């Protein structure tokens, strides 16, 4: 299941862009190439990686720290471009993704593949040469995991796709930590686990009210394959694991009281919303929409408070110490 052999003709991967007319020579603008990088995902990656760097118990020169963040961001963007290259056929069939550059015919699949591979190589090599090899290896594995394990394999073959694939989105704090310390320990692994267990309730809440979209595209998301009830039960189950995990950084002593209070309150809200999702029945979708929206705030709050408490200068450290 290789990224390359799946689409032996680089311009036509897995029926990508069937029926799409591409301008020749290319009409792609700079904005189209930026869209390939999935800027919103990239900003979340930068944010969580920055938190991983801030929590790490060591010092990093700001220029080297900036370089590490840039490489992590570009690596994430490269993985996004490779994802759009491979998934162009699915994207064309889903309302949410139909306006991406490849299904719109503005960027050819081969251009996206070349762009993604070039940026991935650049990001990993630069991180390895300018920061350290452990961080570079983790970044390379993350790109591989997202582009090959998740995109090319799991996404189309199992309803557990986003559970296992969620690991790719969970690695950035670990890479940030490794960029500063040159190693990995329990603290970044817990940050990894928080994002890992946050991913299923977040995406399945979305999938619950976008089931038709995923079914049309042939993506075996949990509600499409296992049905509404099973998905709601699993959303609750993962949230039951997530809420206590979110408090662990405080219990283990590398986050302060403000983080602890935030994690307890936000975790309780997540549990209440997940319970409402569990009790709700389709076609009602209010609870799913609320959980999806709050899950974004939940992750943002946890990492923002951790960053503020432990970040350079410890903005809130003097209060919660």
């Amino acid at each position: 299941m290789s990224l390359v052999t799946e689409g032996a003709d680089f311009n036509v991967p897995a029926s990508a862009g069937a029926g799409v007319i591409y301008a020749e020579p290319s009409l792609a603008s700079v904005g189209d190439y930026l869209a390939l990088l999935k800027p919103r995902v990239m900003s979340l990656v930068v944010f969580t990686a920055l938190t991983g760097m801030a929590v790490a118990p060591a010092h990093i020169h700001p220029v080297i720290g900036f370089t590490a963040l840039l490489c992590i961001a570009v690596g994430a963007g490269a993985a996004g471009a490779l994802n759009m290259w491979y998934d162009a056929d699915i994207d064309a069939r889903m309302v949410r993704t139909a306006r991406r550059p490849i299904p719109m015919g503005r960027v050819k699949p081969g251009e996206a593949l070349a762009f993604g591979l070039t940026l991935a190589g650049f990001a990993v090599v630069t991180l390895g040469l300018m920061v350290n090899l452990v961080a570079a290896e983790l970044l390379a594995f993350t790109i591989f995991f997202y582009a090959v394990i998740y995109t090319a394999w799991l996404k189309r073959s199992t309803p557990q796709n986003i559970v296992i694939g969620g690991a790719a989105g969970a690695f950035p704090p670990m890479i940030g930590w490794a960029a500063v310390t040159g190693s990995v320990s329990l603290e970044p692994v817990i940050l990894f686990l928080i994002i890992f267990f946050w991913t299923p309730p977040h995406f399945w809440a979305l999938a619950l009210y976008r089931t038709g979209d995923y079914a049309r595209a042939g993506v075996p998301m949990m509600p499409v394959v296992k049905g509404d009830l099973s998905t709601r039960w699993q959303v609750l189950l993962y949230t039951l694991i997530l809420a206590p995990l979110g408090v662990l950084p405080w219990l283990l002593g590398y986050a302060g009281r403000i983080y602890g209070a935030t994690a307890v309150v936000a975790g309780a809200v997540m549990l209440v919303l997940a319970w409402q999702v569990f009790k709700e029945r389709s076609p009602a979708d209010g609870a799913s929409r609320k959980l999806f929206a709050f899950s974004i705030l939940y992750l943002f709050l946890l990492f923002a408070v951790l960053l503020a408490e432990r970040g350079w200068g410890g903005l809130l450290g003097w209060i919660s110490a």
Partner: protein
Amino acid sequence: MNEQRRDEEEGVVLTEAQKRARRSRSIAIALALGALVILFYAITLVKGPGVLHR
């Protein structure tokens, strides 16, 4: 026949939109390369001789 010969002589003729898109891409690549030159210079200053040691 004449039309085919004319195409071969002229090669690919870009439309105005294609020229604009190409120009904006070229400028973006130039800016990215310039930023990288500055970044690598700054890293070299920060790391000093250590930049050569792996």
